[in-house]
């Protein structure tokens, strides 16, 4: 019985992820069209909603080209890693309050470690391998440059992410996402309860998350005017689709993480009790999804508004400004 329930949870999280990705691709196209004064996809299905499905069919039937001199093993492995790592992260996200059945508490979270934030950080830090190995294995100078750029960019901005995680530890004294939400429900969301620090850290985390997800204005690893397609230049068909999906999954999980860390997760004053029944759990899921979609909208808004950074500016931003700021803020917070 227990194993079946656990499997149901895993399946639920997986289906949720796989359902969100096509929606995001559609949203991205619609929002970019809206910002640029175009119509966007509108032929396939109502409002072009079936466009991602058509894309998938197209990608499935495309020829899968493997460069002759590519390093075969790594060339095949890199897209897998790009997709698997962010999907694993979903195991730590609490989607809603517990459902109390007759004699069983059903947690809307795949695995509730006491130290999920630590695991989250750990798995997050493996994101760089897919890009670095994929870029190298393609045996293409553009891919390689994209891979190197990605490696240094991700390493630089990861420090800021870790700094923000440290701040959350200092503030709430817990390493568990679930406890984090419960504490925020009791004492107010992080972003309002500790005003100047929390807002600064939220902004820092958001910028670092943009860079970590290789999103514009930090999408240097795949800057198309300079690098063709960056690390995925040589990838076609479903392998390219896996990189693409991995990117959107990573964005989604990052937004989930931000909403849990700073915006109270599935808690909303007046709407959702932290402990509760089935209806409450559904409401909690709706609340966290709403928060996530607002964050994702900001992601896309930024992407279609700001131009791409120059590479040296990107690096200087991280090492000269953001990282010292993070360290100083943590020191001040620890001393107070």
């Amino acid at each position, binding site marked *: 019985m227990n194993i079946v329930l656990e499997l149901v949870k895993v399946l639920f999280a997986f289906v949720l992820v796989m359902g969100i990705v096509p929606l995001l691709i559609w949203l991205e196209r619609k929002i970019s069209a809206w910002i640029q004064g175009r119509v966007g996809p509108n032929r396939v299905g109502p409002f072009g909603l079936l466009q991602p499905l058509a894309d998938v069919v197209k990608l499935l039937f495309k020829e899968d080209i493997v460069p002759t001199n590519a390093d075969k093993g790594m060339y095949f492995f890199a897209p897998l890693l790009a997709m698997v790592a962010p999907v694993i992260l979903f195991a730590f996200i609490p989607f809603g309050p517990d459902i109390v059945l007759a004699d069983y508490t059903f947690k809307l979270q795949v695995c509730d470690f006491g130290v999920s934030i*630590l695991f989250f950080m*750990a798995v997050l830090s493996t994101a760089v391998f897919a890009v670095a190995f994929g870029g190298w294995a393609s*045996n293409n100078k553009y891919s390689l440059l994209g891979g190197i750029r990605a490696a240094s960019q991700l390493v630089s901005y990861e420090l800021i992410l870790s700094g923000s995680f440290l701040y959350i530890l200092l503030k709430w004294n817990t390493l568990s996402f679930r406890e984090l939400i419960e504490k925020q429900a009791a004492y107010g969301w992080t972003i309002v309860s500790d005003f100047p620090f929390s807002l600064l850290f939220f902004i820092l985390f958001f910028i670092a998350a943009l860079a970590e997800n290789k999103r514009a204005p930090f999408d240097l690893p795949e800057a198309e005017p300079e690098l063709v397609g960056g690390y995925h230049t040589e990838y076609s068909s479903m392998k390219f689709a896996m990189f693409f999906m991995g990117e959107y999954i990573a964005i989604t999980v990052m937004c989930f993480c931000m909403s849990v860390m700073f915006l109270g997760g599935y808690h909303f004053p007046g709407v959702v009790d932290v402990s509760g029944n089935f209806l409450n759990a559904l409401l909690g899921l709706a609340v966290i999804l709403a928060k996530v979609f607002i964050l994702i909208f900001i992601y896309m808004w930024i992407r279609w508004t700001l131009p791409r950074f120059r590479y040296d500016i990107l690096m200087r931003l991280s090492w000269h400004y953001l990282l010292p700021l993070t360290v100083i803020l943590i020191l001040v917070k620890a001393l107070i």
Partner: protein
Amino acid sequence: MSLNEILLNIIFYALALTGLFSSFMVATSTNMVRTAFSLLGVLFSFAGLYGLLRADFLFAAQILVYVGGILVLIIFAIMLTHKIANVNLSNESTSSSTVIAVVCILFAVLVFIALTLPEYIKINQRNKPLTEMIGNNLLSDSLLPFEILSVLLLACLIGAVYLARKEVKE
């Protein structure tokens, strides 16, 4: 054996085999990047083994420090060398008979230790995260060694910066 134990056994052997195979690849592969790639498999499977022992902190720290830190640095170092554009980037040193002999002796010592250990490594039975305990311990009972280690690391960092710095001649 219950279903749980069977599952744990399957996971253990899968992880152990992956670890062995990847370590073998690390040792024999002549291509630098492929070596780093195999090292990823080694580190991940060992992290998984820590997880099976329910050593949650070691599990996370293994991935965080070794995979996310040291391996990234290794890849960084490889990628910033000037020969990186060459796919057949290789380290010329291959295993000689001396190396194999040393490895065999080391292996024998390890087997000896493993066989003579009084009991197996205890699995964390408390089913409670160890991270909090480790943290408390580090800042109370083992504070002195912890501080000495951190000073040592700081000295290493300063030394590394000093060595890497370009000498400015007046």
